[in-house]
C-alpha cells in the first residue's frame, strides 16, 4: 500500500518529468502546429492552434524549394549509403574477428584509436580527393567517403567475437566456406546488432549537413533535404510558415523511423554512437 507521502512523491516525480518532456517536445509541436497556419495567423497569434488544417504551406514550400528532388536525393543517398556501409562493415567485422592472420588485433586497435580524429581535420583533404576522383558535384560524393565506419565495425566485431568458434568449425566440417558461414550463420545471428547499426547509419546519412553543403556547392541538383532546407530558407526569405512546413518535411521521416524503432535506436545510442 502506498501512503500519502509516497503518492505525493510520485506526483512531483511525474510532474517534473512531464514538464521536462513538454519543453523537449515543444519545438516539434510548434513546428508542426505552425506549419498548418497562414503567415498572418502565425504573426498575429490570433489562436494557439491553426484555425483549419492548411496544407497550402507544404504545397508552396514543396514547389518553391525543389523539395521533391531533395527528398529523392535523401532517400537515394540514405538507402545506398546504408546498404554499402552494411556490406563493407559485415565483411570487415568478419575479417577482424574470424580470419586468422598475424597482426590482426594490433591493426584493429590502431583503427579504433583513430575514431578520435575529428572529421573536420580530414575534410580538407577529402574535398581534394573527391575532386581528383572526379566525383565533385556528383551524388556519389555524398556516399563514397562514408562506407567504411570503424565504429560500426567495432560494434559488429564485438558481436562476432562472442560467437563460439565451435560453430565455425562445425560449419567448416559441414563443408561451408568462410563466405557461406558468414552469410548463412553469422549474419542471421547478428540481426539485432545489424538493425541497430543500420538505424544509426540511416539517421546519420539522412541528417548529414556539412559535407553535403560542401559537395553541393558545385551542383545544386545533389542537395539532400537538410541543406536543401537551409538553402530554401535563404532563397525564399523569412516566411516562417513555409520554413516550418519545410522543416516538417525534413524531420517527419526520421520521426516515423524513431516511433517504430525506438528501442533499437536507444540501444544503439547507449553504445556511444550518434551525436557523441
Amino acid at each position, binding site marked *: 500500500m502506498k501512503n500519502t507521502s509516497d503518492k505525493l512523491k510520485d506526483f512531483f516525480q511525474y510532474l517534473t518529468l512531464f514538464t521536462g518532456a513538454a519543453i523537449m517536445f515543444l519545438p516539434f509541436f510548434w513546428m508542426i502546429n505552425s506549419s498548418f497556419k497562414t503567415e498572418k495567423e502565425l504573426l498575429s497569434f490570433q489562436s494557439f492552434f491553426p484555425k483549419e488544417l492548411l496544407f497550402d504551406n507544404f504545397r508552396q514550400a514543396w514547389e518553391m524549394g525543389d523539395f521533391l528532388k531533395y527528398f529523392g536525393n535523401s532517400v537515394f543517398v540514405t538507402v545506398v549509403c546504408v546498404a554499402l556501409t552494411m556490406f563493407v562493415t559485415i565483411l570487415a567485422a568478419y575479417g577482424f574477428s574470424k580470419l586468422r592472420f598475424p597482426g590482426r588485433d594490433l591493426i584493429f586497435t590502431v583503427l579504433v584509436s583513430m575514431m578520435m580524429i575529428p572529421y573536420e581535420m580530414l575534410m580538407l583533404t577529402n574535398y581534394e580527393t573527391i575532386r581528383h576522383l572526379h566525383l565533385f558535384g556528383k551524388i556519389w560524393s555524398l556516399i563514397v567517403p562514408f562506407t567504411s565506419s570503424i565504429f560500426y565495425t567495432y560494434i559488429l566485431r564485438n558481436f562476432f567475437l562472442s560467437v*563460439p568458434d565451435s*560453430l565455425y568449425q*562445425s560449419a*567448416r*566440417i*559441414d563443408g*561451408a566456406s568462410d563466405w557461406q558461414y558468414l552469410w548463412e550463420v553469422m549474419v542471421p545471428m547478428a540481426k539485432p546488432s545489424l538493425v541497430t547499426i543500420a538505424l544509426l547509419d540511416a539517421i546519420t546519412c539522412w541528417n548529414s549537413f556539412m559535407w553535403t553543403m560542401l559537395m553541393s556547392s558545385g551542383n545544386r541538383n545533389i542537395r539532400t533535404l537538410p541543406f536543401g532546407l537551409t538553402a530554401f530558407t535563404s532563397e525564399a526569405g523569412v516566411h516562417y510558415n513555409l520554413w516550418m512546413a519545410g522543416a516538417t518535411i525534413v524531420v517527419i521521416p526520421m520521426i516515423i523511423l524513431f516511433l517504430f524503432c525506438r528501442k533499437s535506436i536507444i540501444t544503439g545510442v547507449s553504445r556511444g554512437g550518434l551525436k557523441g
Partner: protein
Amino acid sequence: MEVRIEDLVKRFGDVVAVNHVNATFESGKLIALLGPSGCGKSTMLNMLSGILPVSEGRIYFDDQDVTSLSPDKREVGLVFQNYALYPHMTVLQNICFPLKIKRIPKKERIERAKEYARMVHIDDYLDRLPKELSGGQQQRVAIARALVKEPKLLLLDEPLSNLDAKLRVEMREEIRRIQRESGVTTVFVTHDQEEATSISDYIMLMKLGVMQQFAATRNLYNDPANLFVADFIGNPTINQLHGIYEEGSIRADGFAKAIPIGNYKIEDGTRIVFASRPESVLVSKKSGETEMEVEETYISGKDTLCVLNAGDGFLRAYVDNEDAPEEKTAVRVSFRKKGVFVFSEESGERYYE
C-alpha cells in the same frame, strides 16, 4: 571405414600434446578416446576432423591419406561438447544445413533430415529453436546434423559432459544404439572411464599425450598394460600394495608377513606394486594364505565392502552380507588368478608370470 593413425605427433610450442601415437580403428566400431584432462584426447579428435593440422605423422581413412585434407573434404561428422547448434535455425534447418551447403535439392534435403531426426528420436520437435530444447534433445539434434551427410567417420567430443547424471546414462545408451543403427565408425572423447567402458568396443587410453593402451574394452579391464591403465579403469579403483618382491611373495610396506602372490619374472628385492581388483580378493574365516585385520566394513547392497589392513596400505574386498566378518577381527585372505597384476613401482610397467 577404417581409420589408421601412423606415428601421430602434435606440438603446441614446447608442449607435446600427442606423442607418436599409432593405432588402427576398425570399421564400424565405437572407439573411446579416454584419459584425464590434458592427455591429448581432444587434440587427437581435432586432428582426425582436420580442425587441427598435425605436426608429424599421417592419418589414413581406408587407403586414402587425409593428413593434409581440409575439414570439409574429409567427410566426417563432428558433435561438439556444446553441440554448436545454430541458434537462429530450427531443428530441421540445423539438420538440413550440411545438405544445403552441398546444394542438395530442398525436397530431398528435408526428407533425409527427417529420416535422421526419426533415428535420433527428435522428429517431434522439428520446428523448435535450439534454445527451446533440453540438453539431451540438443545433443540428439547435433548427432542428427553430424550423421545426415552420411559421414564415413563420426566424431563426438565429450558428448555427455554437459548433461545431468540421469540423462547421461540414457544418452550414452542412445549413442550406442544410434551408432549400431547407422553402422558408422565412431570415435568419442571422454574423461569418464565408466562412460567409456559401458558403450565402446575399443578404448584408447592416453596420458600426457602418450597412448597407454589401445585394446578391446574388456581387455583393458582384465589385462591392463601398465599401472596407470589398471588404476584408471574400474570402479571402485584397483587395490594397490607397494612393497618388495621376494620369491613369489610381496613384502608389503608396513606389513609384517610376506603375502604370496605367485611367481613372476622379477628379481628378488625389486620394488613392485601389487594390484588386485576388489572382486578378486577372497576373504574367508578359515582358508587363505594370509591373515589380515578387518579395519572397517560397509554394507553396499547385497555385498559388504571390507577394508583390510595391509600395513601402510589397504585392501578392499567384497563379501556376501551373510559371511561379513566383524570389524577389528582377523580374516584369511587369498587372491584369484584373474584381476591380479604386478607392476614395477618405478616405471609402472607390468610384470608377467
